[in-house]
């Protein structure tokens, strides 16, 4: 610590005059970050979320460009090229995509290059071919489209069914809310798997029935979040103010409430997507997926699994794409949740 004398020597005699030309007491306004800018900043800082976003973009691009890139289509069969391992022409000596097929006999690997044996070194099947000689690369990316379609459906259901249900239930309250909440309660007591399975048993397996199944089950989470937020917001001053000013219900909901819960809605949407994708893949796996020759990631995995010990590559690629897709959507949902509302609890 300094002594009083040392302190006193810090300033000179001429400093003892009233301060001049200082902006006195002006509140320093720290550059106000807008909510969205703030959220964007937090999102970009989250490595996982950015990884998720990049992966999703990549997968989407591949889902659309992949089949064309492969030069095959997803259903052309070629019985002369069945169960071929992954191969890219000219990569024969590379560690992967070399076209080498490894068979395990009593745990001992026996390797052979199927492509050289057949004399088709110039043929490329990046992910190999299935039991009917169809190109797995084309099939995997075509199958990814189904997952993406399901993701899109989930978003639509969330916003149209879930959000409106929650808004109406929360905003109007009273008897209507009571009635609507009992519906939610009962629906959420029935396991989703059961609803979906029954539905598909009644309807024909296919995209339509999967869509309907999602429509029945996937909106509940969203409606809960929207309702809770609406209940919270409708008592807030700014909503009460616009109500006393005579604004009509419609515009209160759309101009006062909705913009304020938008963050949570986006987060909830992102959380529904992996669920929906999983539901589709699950249905495909138990034999209720879209019928052949169409493919989805789930049905590819299901088919590939049957010969997994012989041709593991048939499962490997669709499973990897599915896992990456699920992981990316999860990471992005987490990132968005933290970005919009660092305090929002895990759901």
């Amino acid at each position, binding site marked *: 610590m300094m002594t009083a004398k040392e302190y006193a020597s810090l300033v000179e005699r001429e400093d003892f005059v009233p301060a001049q030309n200082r902006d006195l007491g*002006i509140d320093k306004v720290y550059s106000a970050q807008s909510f969205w800018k703030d959220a964007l900043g937090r999102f970009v800082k989250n490595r996982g979320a950015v990884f998720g976003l990049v992966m999703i973009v990549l997968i989407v691009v591949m889902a659309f460009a992949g089949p064309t890139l492969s030069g095959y289509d997803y259903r052309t069969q070629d019985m002369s090229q069945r169960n071929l391992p992954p191969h890219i022409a000219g990569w024969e000596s590379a560690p992967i995509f070399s076209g080498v097929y490894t068979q395990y006999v009593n745990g001992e690997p026996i390797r052979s290059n199927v492509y050289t044996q057949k004399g088709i070194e110039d043929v490329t099947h990046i992910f190999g071919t299935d039991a009917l000689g169809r190109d797995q690369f084309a099939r995997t990316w075509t199958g990814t489209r189904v997952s993406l379609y399901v993701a899109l459906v989930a978003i639509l259901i969330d916003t149209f069914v879930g959000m409106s249900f929650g808004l109406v239930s929360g905003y109007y309250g009273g008897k209507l809310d009571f009635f609507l909440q009992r519906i939610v309660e009962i629906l959420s007591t029935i396991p989703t798997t059961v609803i979906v399975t029954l539905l598909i048993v009644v309807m024909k397996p296919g995209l339509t029935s999967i869509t309907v199944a999602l429509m029945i089950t996937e909106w509940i989470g969203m409606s809960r979040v929207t309702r809770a937020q609406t209940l919270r917001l409708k008592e807030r001053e700014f909503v009460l103010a616009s109500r006393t000013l005579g604004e009509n219900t419609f515009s209160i909901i759309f101009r006062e409430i909705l913009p304020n819960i938008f963050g949570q809605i986006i987060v909830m949407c992102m959380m529904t997507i992996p669920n929906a994708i999983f539901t589709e893949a699950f249905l495909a796996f138990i034999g209720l997926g879209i019928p052949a020759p169409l493919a989805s990631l789930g049905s590819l995995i299901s088919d590939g699994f049957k010969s997994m010990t012989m041709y593991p590559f048939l499962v490997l690629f669709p499973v990897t794409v599915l896992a990456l897709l699920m992981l990316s959507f999860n990471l992005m949902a987490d990132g968005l949740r933290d970005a919009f509302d660092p305090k929002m609890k895990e759901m």
Partner: protein
Amino acid sequence: MEKTLTIRDLRISFQASGGTVRAVRGVDLDLYQGETLAIVGESGSGKSVTVKAIMGIVSSNQIVEGGTILYRCREKDEWTERDLLRLSRREMRRHINGTHIAMVFQDPMTSLDPTMTIGMQLMEGMIQHLHLSRALARRRAIELLELVGIPEAEKRMRNYPHQLSGGMRQRVVIAIALSCSPDILICDEPTTALDVTIQAKILELIQEIQRKTGISVIYITHDLGVVAKVADYVAVMYAGRIAEKGTVEDIFYDPRHPYTWGLLSSMPDISDESSERLYTIPGSPPSMVDLPAGDPFAPRNAYALEADFKAEPPMFQISQTHFAASWLLDERAPKVAMPDSLRRRIESMRGGERTDG
């Protein structure tokens, strides 16, 4: 009077996302037995961090950069003195927290464990520290609840926090703090979260307990009304330092620091008949991450000198008890008097007191 707590040059900082926050920057304070010390300041002035350091509650991102907190107490008829900052977390728990120094927190709605009965929360400390049997601890707990003015104490023992009102809960928190007969009670804004009508009752309760037990009390508050009511000695903190400290008379009747002037002027006064607008100190507390050179209060200070922008003022002694950190007290400084409206107000307060007495 015996000195029980001596804080010297306490410096605490912590890492925040924006950089290092220097929350406490060289605080000196003394607490005497049976005395009531009030620490006044805006939020972020470092008052909470200071007292939490006394309790040894230092969050993981905080660093005690230096200083001492000497605590003196009688143990087995002998005076012992310990530097609390040198004790480990475990030693603090074992020997200091609860038994010698206890704390009452701001919000009674959240400071009780919602899953445990009031009785158990009260008995817990006694069983641990005083090694009382459950039955004995229970009896003492009921006595304590009666002491803090909770009716049907016996029945309340089985209640959970959510079954009590805010005022009742704060009484329970006070009872918990008193359960192991500490020497020092720290009250961190004990009334801010309560209804106005209950505030006074809680303050009276603490004062009454102080009379009965001779405990020393440290109040943290931003409410000068509370200070005037309960304190013997007052420390005004600004930006991690003490701006002015003195007895309650020194601070209220002879304030020297422009910040204290501002605080006193901004205090609402019902007896004040003039229809003057209530004064507010312009601006807001500085960001503690990058403090400007000089006195952090200077930019908000209407009486600032050029010197204030150059260097932080040292503590000037005004009387035996009264200190203030302002270049205005330097012998080289021009004579600057407190604002007229405040002077009139103090005079009328003094006058009122004289006619009362």
